[in-house]
């Protein structure tokens, strides 16, 4: 599916089994993340609100969810709680993006079960590299379990 910027959820990548959900409220960051993720072979879904992210999380399987903390309707923290409370979503690694650079916010993210936390302003290429690292760690953990 071709990527379309704006409020419409976009999806790209034929996928190699890896799926990444990006829920980002800021249009600039969304466009940049979409561009950099589009260069990987992962299936990427980009949405703009917490509600849309929630819908996608319920209907599809994602390996990593990159969530903006200050999303409309449902915050990144709300989504993180839902993901951690739902056993079916326990495999999804969550990375939170936040404007709030205070240590308390980061601490809260990790206490709620986030796998990574990135403060704004961020370099989108670095976010993608960190998603890659989360996937490697996840694959390593799954290998150990099996």
């Amino acid at each position, binding site marked *: 599916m071709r990527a379309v*910027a704006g409020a419409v959820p976009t999806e790209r990548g034929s996928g190699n089994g890896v799926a990444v959900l990006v829920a980002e409220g800021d*249009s600039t960051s969304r466009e940049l993340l979409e*561009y950099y993720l589009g260069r990987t072979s992962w299936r990427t879904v980009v949405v703009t609100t917490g509600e849309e992210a929630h819908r996608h999380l319920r209907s599809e399987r994602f390996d990593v969810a990159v969530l903006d903390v200050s999303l409309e309707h449902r915050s990144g923290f709300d989504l993180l709680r839902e993901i951690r409370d739902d056993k079916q979503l326990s495999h999804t690694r969550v990375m939170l993006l936040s404007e709030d650079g205070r240590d308390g916010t980061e601490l809260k993210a990790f206490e709620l079960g986030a796998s990574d936390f990135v403060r704004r302003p961020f370099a989108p290429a670095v976010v993608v590299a960190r998603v890659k690292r989360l996937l490697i760690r996840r694959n390593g953990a799954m290998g150990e379990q099996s």
Partner: protein
Amino acid sequence: MSAISGFFGSLWHSGGAYRAVLVLVAVEGVLMALCACWLSFTAILMRRDRKLDAAFARKAAPGLLAVLADEKALRAWQARAGRFPKAVLRRYLEPRIMATTGNLNARIVDVYSRLGLLAKDMQQAESRAWRTRMKAMRRLVFVAGPQQAELLVRRSRDLHAIGVLAAMALGRVGTPRQVFEVLRHIELPRRLMAQPVHAMLDAMDQERLAKLMDLWSETPSPTVRRVLLEVAARRVPWVCERYLPLAAGNSSVEVRIGAARSCGMLAGVSSMKVALRLAIDEVPQVRAQAARALGRRGGSGSVDALAGLAEDRDFWVRQNAVAALREQGDAGRRALEELSVSSRDDFARDAARQELEQLLLFTETGEAAS
């Protein structure tokens, strides 16, 4: 209404103090009205900007990044974007330029240039109004290319803040000779002012920095030469090693201090020889920095030299030497024990004892913690 005017009228005629209060109230009223007008005006402008940004987002969809790879689509995008005011285009492009690197960044900067924004920035950078020049220079730090280097050299002699921005941009895009032209005119009367020079040199790639070092001895300011040496020690250590003997024999104390500090960042044999030479320099500040450098390098040669420096006549040299010995493991500890017992110098004995006490305290605390 007549009651109010009657009230103010009677106050006005009641005496000088009342009259003064009334004048103050009137002035305050006028100021508040002006503030309200200004706030309303800026609110209108902000609302207009938001509307324009939203219109741009609609017209320019899909975003620039989605069309970058397709030249035809990019031209169509540029044609659509070109109808909007330059301020709107800047608000759209600037965060994308700042958040990207490498090839993607170069392509967005190219679009920035094609839309005429870079030419406008260059024009504004020569403006007579310093605020306009400053704003333009803030943008040029990110978008200037080698073609703008001459302009940046000129602007580096502007007001301090503008000069710093120009120098930072020049570090990224200027030739070694152009960077040297800026360094040639820089004076650093205070240490804190060296930060922009560090930023400019850090923006240079290794190749250009190595070529700039060829002009090191021609740099007039000794403080700038010191900074150059220190940055080279960190970034191009093999080049720095070549200049150290020259720097160590320089008549300027600043340059010799730079040489001593650089020795601490290097690992070669020649830099060790320079460090040992500077450890017997006639100026205490140089010896103190040499002691630090020897501490950072470590090794048996360093420990012997540091034991000697611990008996120096200058307080800071002794202090740096014993602090460095504390970091040298068993060899340093043995040297401190020997100094604390057999040194003929009372100050050296005291300093060594203090360091040993701290070392003991640290060891005990560490053991208790583990």
